[in-house]
């Protein structure tokens, strides 16, 4: 058992050491994503492209917590929603409630700050317990916030929420324009993807993963387990909150429906379907989700979308717990093993 562990660990180190931050795959994907608006219609650029990137970034924050930290939080949509409500409150909206009219360079950082602080608070509460308890607590917190936002008219404008929340016009570019908004989402997604990917090998990322694998041992050698987890919630909060601001700009509005239980669970579905092991997983899941959401209605009754997405989720959990990424890697290993089979047989013989 231990021998096996050291072996896989060695392979992992070799694998991460071999990969440079910018390998061929990333370069090609990057170029394809940059050129995408040139070939895609505005609908595909905006409704599929930008939406995938935003949803994927929210799910990326869950991937950071669950994949590196072993903490499955259902309240990532709540954090995004809090930042979204804050941008509606701090900047301008057409609902006639709040709308403080702050300039974007104050409103956006403040919204992200409030969102990430909320995430830290959720973390402070949730990290006192571990494992499946955390799912319960984060779900309870998120649902409570949903009911609160729906009932409170003074601050959150209740059931109606805020409408007419648009991105500002900066550098003479109207960021509401599909192509401009796509590039904005792409930039945000790329930055966070890079940070999360790089963070895997940072000191903090490594200690977080070690805590995921064996919290008792980490505590014994002097690491503050709870503090590491709370800081992870803070970082995840920044990611989710930034994506939350983009999500409000994407929809032009935020209502309590944006953060309801279905939306909270959708983030988990996206992250799990894509795969929680690597930062690219959430984006794969988000792409599948966006495609299903937009085109499943052509195949089945649009009312039954949840059955389809829930069914896909169940299938993935049953057959490939590592998500689409796991499927892909299993295919890769099968083909790899086929080509290596004679060699491996030889090595076993010697």
């Amino acid at each position, binding site marked *: 058992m231990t021998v096996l562990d050291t072996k896989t660990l060695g392979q992992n180190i070799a694998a991460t050491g071999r990969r440079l931050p910018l390998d061929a795959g990333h370069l090609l994907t990057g170029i394809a994503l940059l050129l995408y608006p040139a070939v895609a219609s505005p609908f595909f650029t905006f409704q599929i492209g930008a939406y995938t990137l935003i949803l994927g970034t929210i799910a990326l924050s869950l991937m950071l917590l669950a994949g590196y930290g072993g903490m*499955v939080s259902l309240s990532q949509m709540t954090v995004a929603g809090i930042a979204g409500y804050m941008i509606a409150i701090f900047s301008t909206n057409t609902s006639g409630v709040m709308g403080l009219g702050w300039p974007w360079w104050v409103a956006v950082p403040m919204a992200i700050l409030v969102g990430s602080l909320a995430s830290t608070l959720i973390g402070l*509460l949730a990290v*006192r*317990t*571990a*494992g*499946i*308890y955390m*799912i*319960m*607590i984060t*779900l*309870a*917190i998120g*649902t*409570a916030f949903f*009911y*609160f936002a729906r*009932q*409170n*008219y*003074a601050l959150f404008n*209740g059931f109606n929420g805020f409408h007419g929340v648009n991105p500002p016009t900066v550098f003479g570019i109207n960021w509401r324009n599909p192509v401009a908004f796509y590039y904005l989402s792409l930039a945000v997604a790329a930055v966070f993807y890079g940070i999360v990917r790089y963070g895997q090998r940072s000191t903090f990322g490594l200690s977080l993963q070690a805590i995921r694998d064996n919290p008792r041992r980490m505590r014994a050698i002097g690491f503050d387990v709870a503090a590491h987890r709370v800081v992870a919630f803070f970082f995840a909060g920044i990611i989710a909150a930034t994506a939350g601001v983009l999500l409000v700009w994407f929809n032009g509005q935020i209502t309590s429906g944006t953060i309801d*239980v*279905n939306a909270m*669970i959708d983030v*988990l*579905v996206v992250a*799990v379907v894509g795969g929680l092991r690597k930062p690219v997983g959430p984006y794969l899941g988000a792409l599948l989700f966006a495609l299903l959401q937009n085109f499943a209605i052509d195949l089945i009754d649009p*009312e*039954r*979308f*949840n*059955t389809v*997405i*829930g*069914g896909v*989720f*169940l299938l993935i*959990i*049953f057959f490939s*717990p590592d998500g689409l990424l796991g499927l892909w890697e299993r295919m890769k290993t099968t083909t790899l093993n086929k080509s290596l089979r004679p060699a491996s047989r030889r090595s076993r013989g010697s």
Partner: protein
Amino acid sequence: MSSALKKHPVAIVVYVVLAALVVWLFLALWPHWLVALIGSKKIFVNTIFNGVTLAGLYFLVASGFTLVFGLMRNVNLAHGSLYLFGAYIGYDAADLTGSWLIGVAAGFLASALAGVLLQVFVFRRMEGDDLRQTLVTIGISIVGADLMLAVFSGNTYQFSIPPWIDGAIATPIVTAVKSDGSSVVMMYPLYRLVVLAAAVAIGIALWLLLNRTRIGMMIRAGVDDRAMLSASGVNVHMIFAIVFAIGAGLAGFAGVVGGTALSIAPGEDVRYLLASLVVVIVGGMGSIPGAAIGALLIGLAEQIGLAYFPTYGVVATFVIMVVVLAFRPQGIMGRPA
């Protein structure tokens, strides 16, 4: 008794004073300054009664949830769906046969059967993988909610309360005295009191089952050490299936009973799932007395919030949860993990 008095003299005096205060609040006519401070006595007493009866309903739902969790370490996030499923099936059965009691039985049995099927076909396949089991329940609740919406539509259903428990009865609580000297007695719906009585009866029955029977002994042993119970020759799968049937059945039972007191509509599954979650987080996971305490706290907080601070009612529930988590992360009656 006298030794307890010697050990905690201050605490006991405080408890006696508090109890006397509560009795006085319910029985005495309120002086004007108190009415000016927190409103009429009628609203207050009604709120407390509503809170306690709602707590009874929450206890029915949450006790099944906590039982399943305690034994199987599985957070069944489809518990709300079982509530709604039982309610719909119970409604159809009651509608078809014209008997409310058959509806109650049908609700219990339908959810219990669904629970056993879940246990046998889903959870047994991924034993020991708690996280995966929990994720599966999320998927089931998504699909379940959507399919129920397809079959039963988005309409709101309302059971008709059978005549023998319908109507209001007089309580011995005097809310006001008329100018001619006759006193106004508070009336309260009989049905809600029946719900409370049913919850108390089921709570006692569960306690007896767990503490006084052989199968209860096995369940308690399973909560403490699953592997050891299995090693001593008990068919653990059988125990799991029984516990799941009881837990799910209670959710279905609560669905019919709660659907009669309030109503059945899509979205109720989430509401009762949230209630169960908060109740067992506050009360302690896996503990039946904990579920009773948690249900009482949450039921009262919700109704008091609704009556006195309408738009901030949810916050009261939330604050209770935060305070409990801050001081006792394992819940009031929970044991440290």
